[in-house]
């Protein structure tokens, strides 16, 4: 089956899937629909604050704290409003810039004289009326509020409560901000008497995300009214500003302010709270203030917040630093950060910057991953992660911008991980395929090897064994051996009795080695023998035999292989040797005590080169001491590991002094071992064949 179109389709899909996924992810990021992204972002912003919390530079805010000791010394909450009136009076006397109540007083004080009188059984009616003419505790507090610059707060609720609230005048620049703001339908308000007495009106609500206050509204809407937060309103009162400012632009709130002060906010008018650590120095116990135990300058020109920390009275929300603090301290911290101009801002363009960073990093990894080596890629990935983290932190630290680098970083790491996993899986599959391939190749090689072994057995099998062939012929001493350079070889030798007294022998060498040479060797040996047996050799014309063999072998030779051959016929009665040489190395004549000599006799070209050639026949009479040593170029052209050639000189030197008791076999082994010692384990360059023949006279 042709798998190319399918694999092309898959690779096309693979090629587009990742960039397409990236675009979808960034679109989801821009609309804020990436799952868990907000959690990740919040975590990273909290981490910035934990690593580098805001420093409390100036201390414009003091919290008059209705704490545990105040409750113990002045009684349980709710305190009579007359006591609260005293507290306001005391605070006022210390000349604060503004006083803000983080307390809502929606119901009338039941400890006022008139209400208390009703609970006295059998009270004289006159007395009761007289008591009821006394001003109520609420009235007392309202009077004190009127004398001071006090901000009262309301809580935004979505059912019940009042739908009209008092609010300071708003100066809106741009469009009407109401629809952009955190919106409540109703409010839990203070007694109208108190509301009217207050100089400022504010909203106290803050959103708590899983127990942590990370952002507070600086302005919010209740019904149709826009109200400033406690902090903004306190600043307005302190600055003497007649109204508060809200600036909107292109469907978002840019910021809020009072005279001489502008605070950039998020697009819904909220402020990301920049926290410092909890500091007890912000707190003054209400009891100490009432008892006049504090320094008279302690509240001068300060923004005073009146609130609770007494356990059981309030919940303790957490800050971004992970500290649980009374809610009033969060208001104080907001005021501090505004006062020190150390507020945080997540700019409206952050999403686009983050989206661009995600796109750039995503594309970079898609492009870079397949092109880079792991040794380059891993340090780059690590550097990018560190650079992102540092950039985010530096922007927070020095610009007070909250830019989400966690999302691009997460995307980058996830994409890197995914591509790593993908490449690992692919590599594993590839490895598996390679292993299977290797296994197949091994099996195939084993099969071929088995066949080659069989071929070798066959080839060696058609060479006669000198130890068996002439056991009953004392007139002949012969040894021969062939060793192919590869599994099978192109050398050949043969010997057989042509008749009762004559032995025919041949040594040949097909050009090349390996399988083609071995096939040619088998053909040549077979044809040579059949020609020898067929031809009438009565006239001892070996040249003619060689010519016939040449004609036969040349006939079918498409690969143009050729074979050098030395053939001989030895008459065992006389030692007469007739021989013919077709391009073969001249054999050596050896005798104890004599130097080796070449057997003379001009030859012709190797068999199968010329279709028709008249080879010459030569004659030599062997003595019974002489050995005829025939060899192939595997001996003379053997190489040692230093690539030196053995050569004919060394071969002759090695056979210089053969012992008197030598046999053909010992002479052959001597020559063979000399060659082996020289090559010293180097891979043989060619097949090696040696044959040694000695005529043994029957007279000796």
């Amino acid at each position: 089956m042709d798998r190319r179109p399918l694999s092309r389709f898959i690779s096309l899909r693979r090629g587009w899937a990742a960039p397409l996924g990236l675009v979808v992810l960034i679109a989801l990021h821009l609309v804020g629909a990436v799952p868990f992204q907000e959690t990740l972002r919040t975590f990273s912003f909290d981490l910035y604050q934990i690593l580098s919390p805001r420093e409390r530079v100036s201390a414009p805010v003091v919290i008059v704290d209705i704490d545990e000791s105040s409750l113990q010394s002045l009684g349980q909450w709710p305190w009579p409003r007359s006591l609260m009136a005293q507290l306001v009076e005391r605070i006022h006397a210390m000349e604060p810039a503004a006083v803000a109540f983080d307390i809502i007083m929606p119901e009338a004080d039941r400890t006022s004289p008139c209400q208390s009188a009703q609970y006295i059984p059998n009270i004289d009616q006159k007395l009761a009326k007289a008591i009821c003419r006394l001003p109520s505790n609420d009235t007392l507090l309202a009077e004190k509020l009127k004398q001071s610059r006090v901000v009262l707060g309301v809580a935004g609720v979505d059912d019940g409560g009042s739908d009209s609230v008092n609010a300071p005048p708003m100066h809106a620049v741009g469009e009407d901000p109401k629809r952009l703001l955190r919106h409540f339908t109703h409010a839990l308000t203070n007694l109208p008497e108190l509301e009217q007495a207050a100089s400022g009106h504010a909203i106290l609500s803050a959103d708590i995300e899983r127990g942590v206050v990370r952002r507070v509204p600086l302005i919010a809407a209740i019904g149709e009214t826009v109200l400033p937060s406690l902090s903004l309103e306190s600043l307005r009162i302190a600055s003497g500003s007649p109204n508060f400012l809200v600036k909107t632009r292109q469907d978002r709130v840019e910021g809020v302010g009072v005279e001489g002060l502008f605070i950039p906010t998020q697009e819904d008018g909220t402020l990301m709270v920049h926290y410092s650590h909890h500091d007890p120095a912000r707190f003054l116990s209400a009891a100490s203030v009432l008892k006049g135990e504090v320094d008279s300058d302690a509240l001068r020109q300060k923004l005073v917040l009146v609130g609770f920390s007494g356990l059981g009275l309030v919940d303790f929300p957490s800050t971004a630093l992970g500290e649980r603090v009374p809610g009033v301290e969060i208001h104080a911290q907001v005021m501090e950060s505004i006062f020190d101009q150390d507020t945080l801002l997540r700019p409206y363009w952050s999403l686009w910057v983050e989206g661009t960073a995600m796109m750039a990093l995503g594309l970079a990894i898609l492009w870079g991953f397949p092109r880079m080596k792991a040794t380059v890629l891993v340090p780059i990935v690590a550097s990018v992660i560190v650079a992102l983290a540092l950039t985010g932190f530096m922007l927070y630290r020095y610009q007070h911008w909250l830019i989400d680098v966690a999302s691009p970083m997460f995307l980058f790491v996830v994409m890197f991980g995914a591509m790593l996993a993908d490449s690992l899986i692919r590599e594993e599959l590839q490895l598996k395929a390679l292993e299977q391939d290797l296994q197949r190749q091994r099996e195939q090689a084993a099969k071929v090897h088995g066949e080659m072994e069989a071929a070798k057995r066959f080839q060696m099998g058609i060479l006669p064994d000198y130890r068996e062939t002439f056991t009953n012929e004392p007139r002949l001493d012969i040894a021969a051996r062939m060793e192919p350079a590869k599994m099978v070889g192109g050398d050949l030798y043969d010997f057989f009795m042509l008749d009762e007294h004559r032995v025919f022998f041949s040594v040949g060498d097909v050009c090349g080695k390996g399988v083609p040479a071995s096939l040619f060797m088998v053909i040549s040996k077979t044809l040579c023998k059949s020609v020898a047996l067929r031809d009438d050799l009565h006239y001892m014309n070996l040249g003619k035999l060689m010519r016939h063999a040449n004609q036969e072998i040349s006939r079918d030779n498409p690969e143009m292989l050729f074979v050098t051959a030395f053939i001989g016929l030895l008459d065992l009665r006389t030692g007469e040797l007739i021989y013919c040489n077709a391009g073969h190395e001249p054999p050596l004549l050896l005798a104890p005590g004599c130097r080796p000599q070449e057997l003379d006799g001009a030859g012709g070209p190797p068999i199968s080169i010329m279709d028709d050639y008249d080879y010459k026949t030569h004659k030599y009479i062997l003595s019974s001491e002489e050995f005829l040593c025939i060899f192939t170029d595997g001996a003379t052209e053997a190489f040692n590991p230093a690539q030196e050639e053995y050569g004919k000189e060394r071969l002759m030197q090695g056979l210089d002094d053969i012992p008197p008791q030598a046999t053909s076999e010992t002479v052959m082994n001597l020559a063979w071992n000399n060659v082996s010692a020289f090559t010293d384990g180097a891979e043989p360059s060619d097949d090696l064949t040696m044959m040694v023949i000695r005529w043994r006279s029957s007279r000796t």
Partner: protein
Amino acid sequence: MNIQEELLPNGVVKIHLSGRMDIAGVGEIETRFAGMTASPRMAIIVDMSQVPFMSSIGIRALLINAKAVSKRGGKLVLLSPEANVEKVLVTSGIDQIIPICHSQEEAVGKVTA
């Protein structure tokens, strides 16, 4: 092994062989050698002076090309082989099929005759 072609006057092509003519060496030049001798009626001189070693496979390569040239009506001679290479050529009787010359004049004379 390396093989280079040089065009002499009278249309004689001189092929320079250099390197050992063993199985590996011949494998490197076989195809180009055959390509250089593929045209009809060529007069080719093969310069053997840079060939230090000749194996039977090298002889075969020379023979194949000499036969191919001869079949197409051309002539091929060997020029100035080293002594040991010439000995191999003479021993194997190749010199009776491919003439061996010892000077360029002699070689040019033989192939253009």
